[in-house]
């Protein structure tokens, strides 16, 4: 059924969040809050070198330390063949993941895991790590993406021959893959162009910076049954990766999802779970592991840093006739940066006749990148949206008008293949035009920037069940960890279908043994895909409730109508019966056919793409180079906001993370390839007082492929901020800042260089 044009009573309202009380009172049970009797503490020994061959590991002294119950190295893990995994959100190879979890022959970055211990206390485990003796042969390292692509760069993987080039290269390199997307005739396009702009841009890797470090508790029972408690963006993902890396049947692993303290894409892969299981197997006790913040920075994935060049050609009237982009993405130590989406997203906002995009996936001695909110798109769009702004300046055209003129519409064929359908980009741009911020006078010394962004959003596999409890209250369960309010939105959709208040529905995240397979919470898919499954499950329950009422009244099912949470006879011909509500029907369930519930699994298709536009005003302290954001408005097509407060929260959060990416977050490496700022003091995420109130404006162009019209909303808002801020700085000081972060020293240096 489709409810887009229905009058809705629950969807679109703002009930109190179901997980709120637990979280604000500190009672919510996160990964690290779980304990087991007699449990041991597991800890990981990590590489102090950026790149080294492991000559030998001697664990004998550690094993002899009283209190140590198990010590592991890669020898305790099966050798895994190279095989592409489609378990998490980003590209991942099972062999590489195994090597990343426990290095086999070489350590490829500082912080790379190479041994682990389980001991009766944390301090004994720490001491045991010190007693593990490792002999390294230190190798030359490479950190920067351009350096890694150089002819004489140290090569990380002797078997890496660039994919996507013909013929296959004869020499191994750090370039894992080259991808190209072409549309039209780029040379003809530039020949036709009357105005051309070009730019080179760099972005830094940024960490997802979830507040909860990775942690888990694993128990290997003597019968081979394994239980894992862990927070993640997909407990089925943990099960699949752990099973594969340890060579264990999935049926023997049960993963219980803990409350998650942020993921943003960074918890769509694993680091600790197979190690904790292997330690538990060896020690015969439950093993708890939790990373320190320093380990999170040194050992887990940020998103790629990159260099990007953009060249645009346009007619004098502003029609863009040629668009070219070259992207070089850091993948970290193993292949698999988000170069694909990077290549697709930069120009996806525009209707362009001639496009040429080339992307490189490049390894270097850094932690393997992990998904981060709209993986690849913010990097690509930063470059494109700066170039579009420069084009507007060169054309003497209003930046909004230029974007309106070239905006993608329904029917626009993208350079990567698909044709846009049911998109709301024009409506977003129209909302920019009418928003008071866009026309507000700008105080002297300030600059205003505009940038737009795109993300595909995805659907995929989800399972949901709806149970009517014996008292007529409702339980909804899904396999989707709740990282952005999905318990609220799913409960609301179920409540809407059942015709009951949201407070009558309790939504939970069920473990891997208690619900059907569900793909990770990623790609902004849960409210769309899991919401679709839950909606359909609720509809099946309504059908069943109608059947029960028909049976009670002894009338045909099609003579029963479901309205406002009650069964009514459909018209006077059906008979005169008092309506039956959920409680009445539940009370009689034993007599009418037993428990009332339904489970639905879907592979949801038709996730509506999302578009956003951000407007930002900045003031620049020209003497210190410090940029202050004075006003920020984020406008986005959200399809239908199921719970508008959560949607606004997603938009504000994405913009805040983008502000950090733009102005202050970066990895600082020393000459030895070691990270110098593995903590929140010097890895500078914005603090509350750095971020102004972000006004989120919801544009609702319904997605007809979802029962309520929902689109994914969580990723689009991190795409525009970097360019919006760079464009605003250009407005304020007349200079383009093409390199992230646009930190005070860089801004001051640019001002000084300009004289």
């Amino acid at each position, binding site marked *: 059924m489709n409810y887009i044009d229905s009058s809705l009573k629950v969807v679109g309202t703002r009930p109190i969040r179901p997980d709120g009380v637990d979280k604000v009172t500190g009672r919510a049970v996160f990964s690290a809050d779980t304990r087991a009797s007699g449990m041991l503490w597991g800890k990981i020994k990590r590489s102090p070198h950026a790149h080294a061959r492991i000559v030998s590991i001697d664990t004998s002294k550690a094993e002899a330390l009283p209190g140590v119950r198990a010590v592991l190295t890669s020898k305790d893990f099966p050798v895994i063949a190279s095989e592409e995994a489609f378990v998490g959100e980003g590209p991942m190879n099972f062999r590489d993941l195994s090597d990343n979890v426990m290095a086999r022959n070489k350590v490829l970055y500082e912080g790379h895991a190479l041994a682990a211990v389980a001991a009766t206390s944390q*301090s*004994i485990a*720490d*001491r045991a790590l010190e007693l593990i003796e490792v002999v390294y042969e230190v190798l030359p390292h490479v950190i920067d993406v351009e350096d890694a692509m150089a002819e004489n760069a140290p090569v990380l993987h002797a078997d890496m021959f660039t994919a996507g080039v013909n013929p296959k290269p004869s020499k191994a390199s750090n370039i894992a893959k080259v991808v190209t997307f072409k549309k039209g005739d780029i040379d003809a396009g530039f020949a036709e162009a009357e105005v051309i702009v070009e730019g080179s841009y760099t972005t830094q890797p940024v960490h997802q910076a979830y507040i909860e470090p990775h942690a888990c508790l694993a128990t290997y029972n003597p019968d081979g049954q394994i239980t894992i408690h862990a927070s993640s963006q997909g407990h089925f993902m943990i099960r699949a990766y752990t099973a594969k890396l340890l060579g264990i049947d999935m049926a023997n692993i049960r993963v219980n999802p803990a409350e998650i303290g942020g993921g943003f894409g960074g918890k769509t892969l694993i680091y600790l779970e197979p190690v904790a299981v292997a330690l538990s197997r060896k020690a015969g006790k439950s093993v708890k592991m939790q990373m320190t913040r320093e380990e999170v920075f040194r050992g887990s994935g940020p998103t790629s840093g990159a260099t990007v060049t953009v060249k645009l050609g346009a007619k004098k009237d502003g029609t863009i006739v040629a668009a070219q982009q070259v992207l070089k993405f850091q993948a970290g130590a193993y292949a698999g940066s988000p170069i694909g989406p990077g290549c697709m997203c930069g120009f996806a906002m525009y209707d362009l006749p001639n496009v040429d995009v080339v992307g490189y996936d490049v390894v270097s001695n850094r932690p393997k990148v992990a998904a981060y909110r709209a993986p690849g798109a913010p990097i690509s769009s930063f470059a494109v949206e700066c170039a579009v702004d420069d084009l507007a300046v060169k054309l003497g055209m209003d930046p909004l008008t230029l974007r309106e003129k070239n905006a993608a519409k329904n029917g626009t064929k993208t350079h990567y293949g698909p044709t846009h359908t049911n998109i709301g980009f024009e409506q977003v741009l129209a909302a920019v035009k009418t928003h008071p911020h866009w026309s507000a006078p700008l105080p002297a010394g300030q600059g205003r920037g505009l940038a737009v962004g795109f993300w595909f959003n995805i659907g995929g596999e989800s399972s949901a069940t709806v149970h009517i409890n014996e008292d007529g209250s409702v339980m909804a369960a899904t396999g989707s960890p709740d990282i952005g309010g999905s318990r609220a939105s799913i409960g609301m959709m179920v409540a809407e279908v059942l015709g009951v208040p949201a407070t009558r529905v309790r939504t939970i995240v069920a473990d891997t043994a208690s619900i059907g397979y569900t793909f990770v919470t990623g790609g902004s898919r849960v409210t769309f895909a899991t919401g679709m499954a839950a909606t359909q499950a609720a509809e099946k329950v309504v059908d069943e409730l109608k059947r029960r009422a028909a049976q009670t009244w002894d009338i045909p099912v099609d003579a029963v109508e479901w309205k406002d949470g009650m069964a009514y006879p459909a018209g006077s011909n059906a008979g005169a019966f008092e309506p039956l509500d959920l409680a009445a029907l539940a009370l009689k369930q034993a007599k009418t056919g037993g428990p009332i519930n339904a489970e639905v699994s879907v592979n949801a298709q038709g996730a509506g793409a999302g578009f956003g536009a951000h407007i930002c005003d900045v003031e620049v302290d020209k*003497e*210190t*180079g*410090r940029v202050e954001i004075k006003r920020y408005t984020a406008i986005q097509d959200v399809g239908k906001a199921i719970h508008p407060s959560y949607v606004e929260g997603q938009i504000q959060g994405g913009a805040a993370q983008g502000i950090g990416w733009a*102005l*202050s977050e970066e990895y*600082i490496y020393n000459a030895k390839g070691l990270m*110098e*700022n593995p903590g929140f*003091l*010097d890895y*500078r995420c*914005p*603090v509350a*007082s*750095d971020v102004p109130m972000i006004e989120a404006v919801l544009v609702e162009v319904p997605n007809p492929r979802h029962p309520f019209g929902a689109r994914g909303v969580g990723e689009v808002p991190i795409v525009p901020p970097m360019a919006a801020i760079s464009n605003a700085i250009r407005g304020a000081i007349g200079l383009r800042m093409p390199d992230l972060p646009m*930190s*005070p*020293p860089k801004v*001051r*240096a640019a001002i*000084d260089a300009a004289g």
Partner: protein
Amino acid sequence: MSNLSYAAPTSVDEAVKLLAGASGLAKVLSGGTDLLVQMRAGRMQPELIVDTKKIPGLIGIREENGGFVIGAATPGAVVEAHAGLNKAWPGLVEALDLIGSTQVQGRCSLAGNLCNASPAADSVPALYAAGAVAVVVGSAGRREVPVEQIPTGPGRTSLAKDEFILEFKLPPRPARSSDAYLRFIPRTEMDIAVVGCGISVTLDANGVCTAARCSLGAVAPTVLLVQAMADVLIGHTLDADTLAKLDAAAQAAAKPITDKRGTVEYRTKVAGVLARRTAAIAFDRAMGKNTGKAH
């Protein structure tokens, strides 16, 4: 695995005896906002911790001979709430108030900040500018030491193993005197100074500077007391020429390094910028024109 003893003596003599008798590393604890973090990070593994907070006089503020005396372990929040200090030494109060979060303010102290001997410590440039004197106690007795003689390098002080600071003395304030502290951080809070600047001045009725002490933080191995900056100010109003000379003097005095928090070039320039801005606030305050907060 390590053996750690903790003592909270109730007299100076007892504390000194404990410190003198320690066989391994002994650390004095006041608020612990640096020490505990360093221990947790594994950078410091003391054998003995001597908590000074129970020693009479270590916490508290009193007026004495026209000046103020601040107990060495007095928390930042207590200093911040003291009306007399806010009036006489707004720069010192605002500098101490910048340390850490609200929670840290309940513990962090002037002595801890000084003896941690970080060149980027926020309250230290203000203490130098104030001309504060540290009252040091130890086996050899009691001595009074100008604060700028305490830190000798990053993490190092001139205190003997059995010495600690009992209290700080701030001199009496002549009319038209005030101070200010500014630091530059990339964020708005929760950061460590890339450059800090403390300036204390006394002016005559025409706004001409008659006395000045100036200091810079985070631009050398220790906080610097910069006489050349004071020389630029003394005898002048804060006109454009004086400001330019002050900027140049600060830049000339700055001897920073390039590290994860800033480059030599940037820190040097910002030292000049902050010197001008800090002086402007201090002069305004001295003339009673500015009673607001600098941060």
